[in-house]
């Protein structure tokens, strides 16, 4: 009997049920989309944050302190220590290798200009956009164009195997009156070594120390300084999660972690654990997080995540209230029908049961359809804002269906109690 009444109610009041379901679908799709987005927004924004440049700096283990002010080293006698260029692909072989977005090696030497007065300039060697073969068939693009998207070049970027093409820093070019296509000759300081002729391929603007230097392919600088296969430092750009209590504890002293905490720290993409893994993978180096980028990123991502969560909660409450008010109307208008049911001998419990059964069906249906619509919505948002799809978390489906049913039930509880209390005669007479 109960099921027959339920079915009848759906068959007869099709329009009414469709309306209720539509509202729940709309609200549920909104909640699904926002939930999905707030789960994924951290990863998405973290990718965007990579435009701030590298967040880990790898330098050789060394005892001496560089005395560098504004890109000029005041300690020329410092014993030079290097990293082997052939060790660099190992950075891409650590536990979190998928989180390594890019890296760029640097080799800085001082060169003397010929024919322009006694003037020295820093020559920086690096990768621009170099393809590095990895074990397996994979290929990896490394270089400053990947990790420093804020570098702006007028003209063209030199090729990585170019033996003469360089970029001139904007301040240096202005000072020396250099234009694209000009050539300059340089030698090692003190006039030792042979003369190299460099062609200016582009003018580089960075807002940093590179603006008063010459930036050249690594190979060229290694040949020039006779330091084949050596680099001085490597900047690594990695996708990381914001710092929390565990990572701060690990940073303070990694011995204070017990083995469980250590495993959790090691297997989470904190900037400190990725640095630690780089130190393990590459011999004789120190990897230091660049806190300007790492800490800044953490602060901003936490903020955005909080924003999304708070907005989701607000929308959630609002749509809950919206659905409830709809359920109230759809039930209140059926007072006559209920009066008749009661006159025919239905108990209050049975009336309740009918309404709750209806609400549950509407809630489940609306919740499921809403999930599908919401998944679509979040993909649209992801594609148009971030240019990539938002990963769909399965947890959203049960949460959403349960929530939809709960809201529908909550909305129908109050009016169904009111209506069940009505006196059949009064209702049928049409006074209420």
């Amino acid at each position, binding site marked *: 009997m109960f099921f027959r009444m339920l079915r009848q109610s759906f068959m007869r009041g099709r*329009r*009414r049920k469709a*309306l*209720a379901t*539509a*509202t729940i679908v*709309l*609200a549920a799709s*909104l909640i699904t*989309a*926002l939930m999905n987005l707030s789960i994924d*927004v951290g990863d998405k*924004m973290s990718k965007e*944050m990579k*435009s*701030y*440049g590298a967040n880990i700096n790898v330098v050789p283990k060394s*005892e001496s*302190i*560089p*005395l*560098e*002010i*504004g890109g000029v080293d005041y300690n020329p006698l410092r014993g030079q220590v290097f990293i082997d260029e052939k060790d660099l692909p190992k950075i891409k072989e650590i536990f979190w290798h998928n989180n390594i977005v890019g890296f760029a090696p640097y080799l800085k030497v001082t060169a003397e200009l010929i024919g322009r007065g006694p003037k020295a300039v820093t020559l920086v060697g690096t990768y621009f956009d170099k393809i590095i073969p990895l074990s397996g068939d994979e290929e990896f693009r490394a270089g400053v164009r990947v990790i420093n998207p*804020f*570098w702006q070049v007028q003209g063209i970027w030199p090729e990585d195997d170019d033996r003469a093409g360089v970029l001139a820093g904007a*301040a240096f070019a202005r000072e020396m009156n250099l234009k694209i296509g000009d050539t300059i000759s340089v030698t090692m300081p003190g006039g030792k070594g042979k003369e190299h002729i460099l062609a200016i391929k582009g003018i580089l*603007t960075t*807002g*940093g120390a590179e603006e008063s230097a010459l930036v050249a392919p690594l190979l060229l600088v290694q040949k020039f300084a006779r330091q084949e296969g050596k680099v001085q430092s490597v900047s690594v750009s990695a996708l990381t999660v914001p710092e929390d209590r565990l990572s701060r504890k690990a940073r303070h002293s990694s011995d204070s972690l017990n083995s469980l905490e250590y495993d959790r720290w090691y297997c989470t993409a904190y900037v400190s654990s990725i640095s630690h893994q780089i130190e393990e993978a590459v011999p004789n180096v120190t990897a*230091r*997080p*660049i*806190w*300007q980028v*790492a*800490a*800044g990123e953490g*602060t*901003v991502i936490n903020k*955005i995540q*909080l924003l999304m969560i*708070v*907005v989701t909660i*607000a*929308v959630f409450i*609002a*749509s809950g*209230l*919206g*659905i409830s*008010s*709809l359920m109230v*109307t*759809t039930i*209140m208008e059926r007072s006559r029908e209920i009066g008749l049911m009661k006159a025919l001998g239905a108990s209050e419990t049975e009336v309740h049961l009918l309404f709750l059964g209806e609400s549950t069906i509407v809630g489940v249906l609306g919740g499921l359809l809403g999930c599908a619509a919401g998944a679509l*919505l979040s993909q649209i*948002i992801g594609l*148009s*804002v971030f240019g990539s799809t938002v990963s769909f978390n399965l947890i959203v489906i049960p949460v959403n269906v349960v929530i939809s049913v709960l809201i529908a039930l909550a909305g129908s509880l109050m009016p169904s109690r009111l209506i069940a209390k009505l006196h059949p005669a009064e209702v049928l007479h049409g006074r209420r």
Partner: protein
Amino acid sequence: MAGDKSGARTNTWMFLLILWKSLKVRRSRVFITFFSIMIGAAIITALSSIYFDISTKMSRELRAYGANFFIGQKDSSGSRIAEAREIEDALAMVPQDKVIGASPYLYGVVRLDLGNAVLAGVDFAGLRRLSPYWQVEGRWIVVDFDDASCMVGKTLAKNMELKVGSQVTVIRNETGFQRKLTVKGIVETGQAEDEQIFVNLALAGRILGQEGKVNHVMASIVTEGTDIDGLASRMQNRFPGLDVKPIRKVSYSEGRILEKIKGLMALIAFIVLTVTTLCVMTTLIAVVSERTREIGLMKAIGADDRGIVLQFLTEILVIGFAGVLAGMAMGFVLAQILGKAVFGSAISFRFAVLPVTLIPSVCASLLAAALPVRMAVRIVPAQVLKEE
């Protein structure tokens, strides 16, 4: 003529009477209509308020990345040292409330107990706001007349065997300066600061014999979009002797990130607006459709179609306006709560929010009322009254 007039008056009177009765008698329905419109308007108001304020709020948050502005001496002028006064004048061009933090820097090489190091003179109060990302073990130096303390970079501290609280002798041969300083804090940034020792600017001036001079000033300035390039060129024009530039690493990325966040918020606000409007519409359709019988009765006693539609629309309009107004007030309060929860500051009210909330809410209400009423009006009264 007189009959027409009084007839018109009776009609108007009747119209108002029906309106009043329908609002009064069906109080619970009126309340539900009002309530759902209010909730819809509130959420739209709250989200659009946040959307219009998000750039300002997030650009303040993005100052976590530190300095985005550099003022120094022109390279070509030979010396790299500038008068502190001139740079301060330049910095004064920026409105005070836009400067989150700024610090001058004066560099020089000094001898410590175990070797040479780069010494930097800074303004610690400004630096602390400028570089919130500094990881400090121990404490910051808080007063700017403190000339017995220093802060040391992590790598330098390790090499010089310094701990928080230990003493270090700073010697500068050229000026004959020699003094023992207490290490107040050890700094880690992952960049050049790790190898430097920091003291107050005044003390650095005495140590290096460069009082009243600085190398450059770094500042953290709240900007929106490309303001910062304009600011740099205006400052450069007024102070041709200085080298003024935005730090591209920070300013370029900031623009990109702000754009993304703004786009995200815009899309979310738009979707919430659409979906909430539809949600309110379905509720209103439900409320109005149940009054089909009433419409049939009105028709049976001689009301014309136009009159019925007009009456229902006016009714919805009255409730709708009241709902939207209450919703806007509520939405504004909601925006403040969200703003406080996320950014710790209030969301400012903008007039652009009014049309964004009002127009879709009222349009949706009217449309939602018109659809079922028009359908009901077409039906033959007898059919409706017979309960079909």
